[in-house]
Each structure stands twice: as structure tokens, then as C-alpha cells.
């Protein structure tokens, strides 16, 4: 059971980006190099004139990245993906997906729409029928490349969800800086710090339900579509991908949709109420569909520890569960000290699972140390009581 779970999840397999015999590595290198080249050309041309706006944008959004990384790292649990793999997704999202793909593709598609339907139509509907196609696909390509680079590691819709979130974060941060830069230019380069700061305020709030969310849903859908879930659910995958694109499109056509729905107040109602709720429900659904497989793998990896008596069945279930399951387990303990002990033991059980995965199921020194830690935490609790 443990060996099967380790094999299926690929947990513990190291990730290496540089693989000269892997075509995905060369395509990745081409996309990132092309993206970085375009990025430098774009910002470099105006850096001297609009440097203050650009600098404020870079600093503000770099700081904004930190809480996002903490949040995403928390959700990268169960059969955890390695940091260098997630960095690979983030870099693709921030360079290739933005400047190599989305920037030329969005401009061309908007121009084609203008020729077909006129500029007024483009003003109302163009963005929402352009960005979701070019940008969701552009970010989703990171996942396809990572499947080619690490087929053993990228195995479940939950992996897709996490990788999508990181690619989306890279895209979002670079796009935010681009908005700050463009706004500075649009405001004639006067009050550059103010222009960039206004963009930061708006984009950091609306970004809570933005690229990270759309890509997480879209990429979990790709995994279902490719049959990389526990059972084939291709239609589910397709629907999740479409839902992510529709959610993205609604944000980009907020002005026209809001006005059609409720007139002048519609934009605000859509922005602060309808779209955030709908998007969070969509993320919740994608999450609920993806997470059981990961939890089952983690349970199976820890199950032998319950058979040997190191952990109880309840502890294994809680350690492999979501935050509600863990909280329920902690609250079932009597007294503050026991609850604290339960929290420590659960964390130590997750450490043990990580060590078991790193040792590919064998009893390494790290595994033995993690087991001794659990025993120590129990003994510490009982001596203090």
C-alpha cells in the first residue's frame, strides 16, 4: 500500500530542470529566454523616463508576492511538490506566458476583433474574449512542460492545481508591474509614484481572485482532461477549464457586464460581491474534487506507522486530512496541553511522511529520526501532565 502510494504520487522523486535529452527543457528555455528578452525590451525603452513608476511597481508587487507564497506553500501539502519545480512554473508564468505569448497574441486578437466588430465592441467585450484564451493557455503550457519534465512527479489534479497557482502568481505579479508601468506612461509620467501606487491598491485587492485562482482551476482541469486523475473524468476536466476561462472573461468584461446587469451600480456589485463569491466557489469545487486522491495517498503512506503502533488511526486520518479534520481531532483532546501535543504530533507525522517519501519508503536515518521525534513529543507531554 505504502509502496503503491509512493509510486503513484511520485512523492520524493527529485526534480531537475536541466535535462538536455528532454525536448520540454529546450522549449521551456526558448519560451523563458524569449519572454525575458521581450520584457527587457518593453521596460527598458521607458525605464529612464518612467523609472520611478516602474520602481514603485516592482517594490510594491514584490512585497505583495510574499503573503501569496506563504499561502501557496501552506496548500502545497499532502504529497508535496518540490520548490524548484514550483519555481519553474512561476518563472514560465512571469516571463514566457506574459511577454512571449500573451502580449503579442492579445494585441493581434484585439486588433482582429476591432476589424470584425468595431472599436466600440472591442471596448466592451474585447478583453474578456482575448485574455482568457491567450493567458489561460499560456500559463497552462507550464503544466504541460512540467508533465514532460517530471512525469513521475506531476501525477494528480491537485498537482495541477498547485502548479497552476504558481504559474498564475508569476503571471499576475509581472502583469501587475506592467499595469503600474503603463499607468505611469498613460498619466504623462507626472506623479509617477502616485500612478503606480493607485494600480497597486486596485490590483492587489482584485488580484485576490485573479490569475492564481483561474490558473489553479484551469490546470486542475487539464490534469482531469489528460486522464491523470484517479479515474478518467475528461468532461469534468474540460468543464473546469472552460469555467476558469469564463471566470477570467467575466472579470475582464466587468464594466459592460455590470452595466447590463444592474446599470451604474452593477460594476461595483459584480466586483465586490458576485464575481468573488462565484470564483471562490469554483476554486472550492476544483479543490474538493482534487484533494481526496492526495489525502488517500498520504493516509496510505502513514498507515504502516499505525500498524506498528507509533501513530493511532485517528492521528493518521487527521495528519492526512484537511484543516477541518485536523481541527476536529485537536478539539477532541481534553485540555490545552493535550491539544498542543496533538498539534505537534500531527506536524511530526507530516514530517515523517516527508522523510519516508524522500527515502522512497525505506528506513533511512531521516525516517528513524522523525519516528523518534514523535516518541519524544508523546513522552514530553506525559511527563508534563
Amino acid at each position, binding site marked *: 500500500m505504502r509502496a503503491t502510494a509512493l509510486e503513484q504520487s511520485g512523492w520524493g522523486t527529485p526534480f531537475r530542470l536541466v535535462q538536455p535529452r528532454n*525536448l520540454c527543457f529546450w*522549449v521551456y528555455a526558448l519560451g523563458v529566454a524569449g519572454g525575458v528578452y521581450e520584457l527587457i525590451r518593453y521596460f527598458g*525603452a521607458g525605464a529612464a*523616463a518612467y523609472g520611478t513608476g516602474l520602481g514603485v511597481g516592482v517594490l510594491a508587487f514584490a512585497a505583495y508576492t510574499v503573503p501569496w507564497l506563504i499561502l501557496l506553500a501552506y496548500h502545497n501539502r499532502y504529497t508535496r511538490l518540490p520548490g524548484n519545480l514550483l519555481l519553474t512554473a512561476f518563472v514560465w508564468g512571469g516571463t514566457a506566458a506574459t511577454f512571449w505569448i500573451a502580449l503579442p497574441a492579445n494585441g493581434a486578437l484585439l486588433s482582429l476583433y476591432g476589424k470584425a466588430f468595431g*472599436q*466600440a465592441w472591442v471596448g466592451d467585450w474585447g478583453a474578456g474574449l482575448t485574455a482568457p484564451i491567450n493567458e489561460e493557455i499560456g500559463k497552462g503550457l507550464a503544466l504541460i512542460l512540467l508533465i514532460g519534465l517530471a512525469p513521475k512527479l506531476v501525477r494528480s489534479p491537485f498537482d495541477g492545481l498547485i502548479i497552476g497557482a504558481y504559474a498564475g502568481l508569476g503571471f499576475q505579479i509581472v502583469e501587475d508591474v506592467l499595469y503600474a508601468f503603463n499607468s505611469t506612461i498613460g498619466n*504623462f509620467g507626472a506623479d509617477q509614484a502616485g500612478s503606480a501606487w493607485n494600480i497597486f491598491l486596485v490590483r492587489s485587492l482584485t488580484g485576490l481572485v485573479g490569475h492564481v485562482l483561474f490558473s489553479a482551476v484551469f490546470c486542475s482541469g487539464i490534469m482531469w482532461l489528460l486522464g491523470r486523475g484517479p479515474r478518467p473524468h475528461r468532461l469534468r476536466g474540460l468543464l473546469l477549464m472552460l469555467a476558469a476561462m469564463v471566470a477570467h472573461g467575466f472579470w475582464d468584461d466587468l464594466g459592460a457586464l455590470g452595466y447590463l446587469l444592474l446599470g451604474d451600480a452593477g460594476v461595483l456589485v459584480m466586483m465586490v460581491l458576485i464575481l468573488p463569491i462565484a470564483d471562490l466557489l469554483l476554486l472550492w469545487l476544483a479543490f474538493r474534487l482534487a484533494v481526496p486522491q492526495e489525502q488517500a495517498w498520504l493516509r496510505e503512506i502513514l498507515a504502516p506507522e499505525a500498524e506498528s503502533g507509533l501513530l493511532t488511526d485517528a492521528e493518521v486520518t487527521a495528519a492526512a486530512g484537511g484543516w477541518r479534520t485536523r481541527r476536529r481531532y485537536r478539539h477532541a483532546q481534553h485540555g490545552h496541553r493535550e491539544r498542543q501535543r496533538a498539534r505537534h504530533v500531527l506536524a511530526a507525522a507530516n514530517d515523517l511522511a516527508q522523510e519516508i517519501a524522500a527515502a522512497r519508503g525505506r528506513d*533511512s536515518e531521516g525516517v528513524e529520526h522523525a519516528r523518534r521525534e514523535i516518541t519524544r513529543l508523546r513522552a514530553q507531554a506525559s511527563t508534563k501532565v
Partner: protein
Amino acid sequence: MVNSYGGRHALHDTWIPVERRRLGLDRRTLLPGLVVLAVALLLRSVVPLIDQAVPGDTVIQAGQRLNLGDGLTVAPPAGWQLTDGILVGANTVQPGAGSPTASFSTGGVSAQVQVATFAGDANALLDQLNRNAGKSGHRQRSSVASERTTITAAGGVTGVAERFASTSGDGVLAAYAFPDGRGMSIEVAGTANQLAAHAGEIDATLRSVTLEARR
């Protein structure tokens, strides 16, 4: 790097047997790699090529004006192609909605309009635009730039304009400031000959700026 775990060598996992290679690459990686390459090239190269091949930007008719928002309008030259911007009376979801940017062009001459809040008069805005251009390096002003002239437009709107000449092309840069706290720049660029051929139309556009009080 060979890193050892559990008595096995990671190298064995990444070693590609010769019979699995094509052109030195792992055959199993060709499909995902080619799919990504094809999709990326379709989006970033093929779609722009289609766009370039498709004619059909809106041709501006005589009497049409661009809605730049909140009562501000300008009349672009008839016969030029509209590549960005919303015409007065266009069928927008929100009736009367305008756009703070516009661009229109004809045979080698292109015009860009930008509206934004600006605290200062038209002269200050033109100074600001010149500073930006000088720092950007894409338009190094030469000494043949004209004296600053005043534009008196319909309805009492006044602006200032300068001609510029650079290594990459010549042009006219105009700036306006409005009582509602907005400023507007209109930059027309092209070669000296093309600009001369369209000088009358450009001048008429710069003098067509109006700001109507919102009802």
C-alpha cells in the same frame, strides 16, 4: 549530478536508453514539447500574421468625432483608419461611453491621443511630454524643432504644439489642459514629406478639440 538514495542512483532514472532516443532526445518528451511549441507559436506568431493579413480597420467618415470621455471629443481626419478609440454615437453597452486613448493613421502617418488627469496648464504638459521623450531616447530632439505655437480650438479650448524632428521620424506634439483637471496629448508622427502632405488635416484635427459641459 548523481545523488544516492536507498541504494539506488538517481542517474539511472534519467538515463535515456539509446533505443528510446530520436535526434538525441527522449522520444517520450517529443509530444509534450512539440504540443507546447505549436500552441505557443500559434498564439504568438500565427495570430499576429493573420491580423496583418486581414484588412478592414474602420475608415473614419467626414463629421465623425472621437469620444474621449466626459464630453471631450476630437474630429480625426476623414479617410484615415481608426485603430483605437470610440466614435461619438458608437453602439456601446453604456450609452455615451468614451475611451481615454485613441489612435488613427493613414499611409505612414499615425496619431496617438492620450487623456489623463494632469495638474498643470498646457505648457507644463508639453514640457512634461518633452522631458519623457528626451529621457526615453526613442526620440532625440534635433535643433530644427519649431517654436511653440498656440492652438485655438472650437469652444474656447486652447492648447500648445511643437514640431519635432528626430532620427526615427518627424512629427507634431500637442498638449491641452482642461478646467476639469484633465490633460490631453496628441502626437502625430511620420516622415517630413508625409507630414507635409497631411499638414492641413493634422492642423484641423488639433483645432477640432471640444469639451462640452456634461448634462
